[in-house]
């Protein structure tokens, strides 16, 4: 569905993309990882038809620059840094729906599902929303229409656990009929969402690997943790994951979203010396 053929991009004699060639098919969920300056954002901007470049980019056989309307109608994009728009949220939703030829009520329904109080935020300037609210709005605009190419830059970074679960559920519903391109600095943030990992380094593809994952995106894992002793720092970390203890901080119970388990285990790793047992099922 998407092909990059020997794509290069040079800014003032600095090569940001260096002969990137990739083919991504429907049903693939790609983690695009790499450090700052690796070329992830530039590659996405080439895909969105926003940058001129050498080589060829095709989406469904079309050049995204020359066929903006057709190609971008299929794309749902969530940037890492929300744009500082002063317009009211309702105005942004109406504009997005109108240019995409979709129904604004679908976007509103999606935003509500993600846990945003639409009646409260619709008249607020977008820029005044909190980080999490902005992210929910942008996800709502991307998923509240018939987009089959989802391009998301650290999409779940500011979401609360419940919104993350709904977001993962939405991605799961589309996983067989869409292409997902999810960028991140860290693989553990997105590893469980994807079935393919592309790592970029200095403008080149450094790694292109398939991932086997037996846990569904919509799965929720019951988790029990036993500590050797109570520890306030651990209690604080668990509170962020909405875990609870009924014996003063020795045994902890809670639920972890399937795609979040790697991130969760990363948090637990910081307290490895305290942990007497873990069970996830």
């Amino acid at each position, binding site marked *: 569905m998407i092909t990059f053929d020997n794509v290069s991009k040079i800014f003032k004699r600095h090569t940001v993309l260096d002969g990137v060639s990739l083919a991504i098919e429907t049903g693939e969920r790609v983690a695009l990882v790499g450090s700052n300056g690796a070329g992830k954002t530039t590659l996405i901007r080439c895909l969105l038809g*926003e940058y001129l470049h050498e080589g060829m980019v095709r989406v469904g056989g079309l050049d995204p620059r020359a066929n903006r309307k057709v190609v971008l109608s299929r794309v749902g994009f969530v*940037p890492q840094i929300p744009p500082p728009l002063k317009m009211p949220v309702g105005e942004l939703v109406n504009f997005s729906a109108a240019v*995409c030829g979709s129904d604004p009520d679908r976007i509103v329904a999606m935003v509500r599902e993600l846990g945003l109080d639409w009646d409260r935020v619709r008249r607020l300037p977008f820029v005044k929303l909190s980080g999490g609210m902005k992210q929910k709005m*942008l996800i709502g605009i991307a998923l509240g229409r018939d987009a089959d190419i989802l*391009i998301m830059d650290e999409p779940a970074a500011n979401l609360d656990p419940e919104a993350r679960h709904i977001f993962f559920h939405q991605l799961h519903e589309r996983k067989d009929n869409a292409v997902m391109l999810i960028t991140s600095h860290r693989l553990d943030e997105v590893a469980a969402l994807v079935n393919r990992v592309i790592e970029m380094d200095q403008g080149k593809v450094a790694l292109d690997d398939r991932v086997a994952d037996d846990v569904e995106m919509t799965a929720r894992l019951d988790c029990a943790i036993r500590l050797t002793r109570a520890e306030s720092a651990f209690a604080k970390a668990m509170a962020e994951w909405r875990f609870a203890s009924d014996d003063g901080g020795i045994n902890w119970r809670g639920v972890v979203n399937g795609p979040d388990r790697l991130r969760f285990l990363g948090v637990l790793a910081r307290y490895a010396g305290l942990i007497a047992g873990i069970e996830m099922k």
Partner: protein
Amino acid sequence: MNALWLTARLDIAESLRARWFMFYSLVFGGIVVLLFVFGLTESRILGFTGLSRLLVTYIQLCVAILPIFILITTVRSVAGDRDAGVFEYMLSLPVPLHAWFWGKMIGRFVVVFLPVFGAMALAAVYATVRQIGVDWSLFVLYTALLVALAWAFLGIGMLISTVARSPDVAQTGAFLIWLGLLLFLDLVLLGVMIREQLPLELVVGIAVANPLQSFRTAAILLFDPQMLVVGPAAYVILDGFGRAGYLAFAIAYPVALGTVCAGIGYHLFRRGDLP
């Protein structure tokens, strides 16, 4: 609704919430209020009294501050939006580039022109209510001149925003262009050039090409038939164009200049990196 009008409406909604717009509206509204407060409608200049006197003064103030206001606010918001990632997101939506660029231009024209016109219109309404004489032909002519001036500098601003890759460069470029045009007004550097006996064609050419000069000359033309304050270059130009011809030129030329500048800006925008 058409993507162009959607973009224009969006830009208007965006601008109405910006601080610059509040300040901008206050400045022009404030000028009219101050002119009334200081009793300008009661005084007389070159035969003008009543609202005509106020309009003449208002239009002279506009030529000094309107262009720089339009240039700075346009380049700050357009180049600033690109710098802040607004273009990256908004242009990931399937809005055609021509609709985005010209929609922004139209939306911006509405927000820069309406406060200036609104202040003038309110003054006219107030004068009518207070039974102060209103010269409606002067009012219509000044409205047309303001449209032309606003469009010219908006086009220049859009061109600068496209060429400059950062808000700072765009702002500096806008300021230098305004300063250049201001310095080449008839009574400033052009006067020096004439005194130094530089070729008359060059001096007249610069005067004709300067939209500030055409606006100023057309505005003055109506109340200074002896052309005591018009300046030597304008005197020569007027001699060639005639009064009606010059007024038509002073309206058509800035509109054409703004459209050409914006057209070049659009061409560069369409053929370059968008964000």
